[in-house]
């Protein structure tokens, strides 16, 4: 009920007031066959856009024909414009050899087919389409007497090179990460999965930004229904701008209000490729290096790609450690509060006396202390993110030390608080996925408050509410806690444990059910016969 109310309040929207002046007539405007009028139309269309430049010139036909090119200076490579377009258009001998009659009929097509050495050329006549091409780095050639223009791609703008991932680092495994450019990102996936079954389709979203959004999946492994669902949800989006995949993440999630990420985001191509091979679907958004992966489960958020490259026993131990870490990050402060405020009987007496002695002459109750220190730490962490790189780390570590140390010696907080907060902090940096860490951080505070009121029972009730919430979550139809709840024993091999590769003969049942066999069984290592 509360949720419906909130949704209602939040989704109240004012009526659209701004109308595009060109949108008065419903029909799409077309180019005319008069070049001057075309030029006027286009100049009016791009009024006050100084980076859209046009240049008139003559085509060397028997009857010299006027033409002009128009392009966005900011998006195009001037060398390409000059060398490959203008040079070939101003060549004399080509037009001399043309027969007049054919040339008169469809000059643009001839130019398109025989003159422009470019892999991306197209005929356009519709103004809106033409402006889309122009704004995505195409050059438009308009010839006098023809109502069709030619668009050729001459993009050339600065972009970041493929370098190491900044948030999901690994010791072993590939070291490239996604960049802002969509086609580069797709190429990173194609290089890993050289199969015609890797499908890639794109749509354009965002009225202003016209952001290209690509969907990648492997046909025959990914569940068709989920693929369809992804497309339906993406097509439902009607928003003015998409500047990062985070926009899309919130727009296509199953649940309107939840702290937990229902869509996984990653900047590692190897991780994305592995997810694709499990039958998941990747959503790549132009201009952002974070690629979305659906469906996502809480288990997939707690797996690092490195787990699959290291020795399986070691990876299993690391994973179990990670599950312990998530519990520490969520519960350690709350349990400390519970023990010192309500349930002193829960720890051995000797330990209790030594710790309680240290706390005897402190001004605040433990709950205030812990919350204070946790808040301090969160602020430091945030400051560390915002500060320039050179200062950031020093400030955060030194600040933590100084504040912790000074607070203890000044008798404001007890050493045990500092220890607990530090352990919690360390544990909360263990998650391979940043977004799950944020949800844990928020819930930690909720549990601290609950446990200061009701002790251990408060923690349990809080955890039960969280558990009910988690069990009710779905990501594109896949239960969020799968394969733990609902339990799927065969899929546990890749949850708390990481089975060796020769044992993982089946794909995860809920995402890769279309083609469950990953490899033939019993192809593992064998010792040669002694003989």
């Amino acid at each position: 009920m509360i949720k419906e109310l909130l949704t209602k309040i939040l989704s109240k929207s004012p009526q659209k007031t701004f109308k595009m002046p060109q949108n008065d007539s419903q029909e799409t405007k077309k180019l005319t066959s008069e070049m001057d009028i075309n030029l006027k139309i286009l100049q009016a269309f791009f009024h006050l856009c100084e980076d859209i430049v046009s240049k008139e010139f003559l085509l060397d036909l028997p009857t010299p024909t006027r033409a002009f090119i128009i392009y966005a200076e900011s998006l195009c490579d001037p060398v390409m414009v000059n060398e490959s377009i203008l040079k070939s258009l101003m060549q004399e001998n080509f037009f001399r050899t043309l027969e007049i009659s054919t040339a008169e009929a469809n000059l643009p097509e001839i130019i398109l087919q025989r003159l422009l050495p470019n892999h991306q050329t197209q005929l356009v006549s519709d103004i809106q389409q033409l402006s889309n091409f122009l704004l995505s780095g195409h050059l438009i050639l308009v010839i006098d007497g023809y109502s069709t223009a030619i668009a050729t791609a001459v993009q050339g703008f600065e972009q970041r090179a493929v370098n190491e991932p900044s948030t999901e680092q690994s010791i072993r495994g590939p070291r490239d990460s996604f960049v802002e450019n969509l086609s580069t990102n797709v190429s990173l996936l194609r290089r890993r999965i050289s199969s015609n079954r890797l499908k890639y389709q794109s749509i354009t979203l965002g009225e202003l930004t016209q952001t290209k959004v690509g969907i990648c999946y492997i046909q025959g492994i990914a569940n068709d229904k989920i693929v369809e669902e992804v497309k339906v949800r993406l097509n439902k989006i009607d928003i003015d701008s998409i500047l990062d995949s985070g926009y899309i993440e919130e727009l296509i999630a199953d649940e309107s209000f939840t702290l937990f990420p229902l869509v996984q985001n990653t900047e590692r191509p190897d991780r994305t490729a592995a997810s694709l091979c499990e039958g998941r679907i990747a959503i790549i958004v132009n201009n952002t290096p974070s690629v979305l992966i659906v469906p996502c489960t809480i288990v997939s958020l707690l797996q690092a790609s490195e787990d699959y490259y290291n020795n399986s026993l070691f990876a299993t131990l690391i994973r179990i450690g990670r599950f312990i870490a998530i519990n520490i990050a969520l519960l350690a402060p709350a349990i400390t509060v519970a023990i010192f405020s309500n349930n002193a009987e829960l720890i051995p007496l000797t330990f209790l006396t030594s710790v309680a002695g240290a706390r005897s002459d402190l001004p605040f109750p433990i709950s205030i202390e812990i919350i204070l220190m946790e808040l301090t730490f969160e602020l430091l962490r945030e400051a560390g993110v915002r500060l320039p790189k050179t200062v950031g780390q020093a400030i955060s570590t030194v600040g933590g030390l100084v504040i912790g140390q000074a607070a203890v010696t000044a008798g404001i907080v007890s050493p045990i608080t500092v220890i607990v907060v530090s352990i919690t902090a360390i544990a909360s940096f263990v998650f391979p996925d940043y977004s799950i860490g944020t949800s844990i951080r928020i819930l930690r505070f909720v549990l601290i408050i609950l446990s200061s009121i009701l002790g251990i029972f408060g923690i349990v009730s809080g955890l039960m509410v969280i558990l009910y919430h988690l069990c009710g979550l779905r990501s594109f139809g896949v239960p969020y806690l799968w394969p733990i709840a609902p339990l799927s024993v065969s899929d546990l091999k890749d949850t708390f444990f990481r089975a060796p590769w020769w044992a993982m003969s089946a794909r995860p049942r809920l995402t890769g059910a279309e083609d469950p066999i990953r490899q033939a069984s019993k192809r593992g290592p064998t010792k040669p016969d002694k003989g």
Partner: protein
Amino acid sequence: MDKEKISGTQTGMLLFTLITATSILFVPGIIVQRTGQSAWLVTSFSCLAGVISLLIVLKLGQRFSRTTLSKYSEIVLGKVMGKVFCLAYVLFFFINNTLTIREFSEFLSYSLSFGSSILLLIIVIVAVAGFGAYKGIEVIVRANQFVLPLFIISFVCLFGLALFKADYERVLPLWEKGIQPLISDSAVPASLFGEIVVLIMLLPIVNKPQEVWSKSLWAILASMGFITLCTLIMITVVGPNLSGHLLFPFWNFVKSIEYGNYVQRIEGFIFFFWLTIIMIKTTLLYYLTCLITAQIFGLKSYYPVVCYLAPLQVTAATFVSSNTIQLQDIFRKYWPPFALFFEIALPLFLLTVAVIRKKRGN
């Protein structure tokens, strides 16, 4: 509401939770008082009640497959009587849940949250249960699947620790007072085993009803073994006489396990998971109360009922008894006949009428 589906395994696990959650804490104490050292044998008699109840419910389920209780009770008994029959079950689930919540909060204020106000505890429990019930049965069974293994692991650790503290002489002499007290004392656990009657509500939403028989039987046997083991170990560690005089002997038994200066006070960690289990149980009963109420009145969804039930549940749980002793008394004297009437007699009555009137489902 009607689209939800649960699997046979999930049902079995849910029934296990339902039976063990309350039994663990209250049954050992109650049966040890009269039967002394032979108490651990009691549950093997009482689980028959569960099996009988299960058989009746499954027969009903076969006769009227994929129909809800509210529908087929009306088919069998006529419109008005059918509604009355279902109202009886509303009452049963409600009172059952009231007592469960009350026991739970009494125990909490006695042990983990010593001295907390019972009302506050009840409000928190009902709030959590209401939230879970609002989420629906699928969520409840999944949450159960999540916590039940943890609960079992924690108890296996407990048994492992207790083994070295046990004195097996304490179970002798067996059959000291003959078999009579064993049978007469099996009423309380029997009423808990009989709670398997919730299947009457769950059967229509199980995706493979043919699995239910075996899985439920496993659930009954497993919980029987589990409670037997708990009682046995409690008797061997604490002793029958002392256990008979304590309010929550099982709690004291867990408290008493110590190894040196380090392994002591493990009860918090052991009971941590037990708390989750019993939360699931109250949530399930709460959900069933809401569901059957909504079905009787033909509501489209049970969500509104969830809100209206919460204050009722809090009030009922607060005023059901004035202290723990009285509650134990209710549990020992009045609860078994009351519960067994709903768990065996009523379904049996419905089945007989259905057989006599030759009513069948689709």
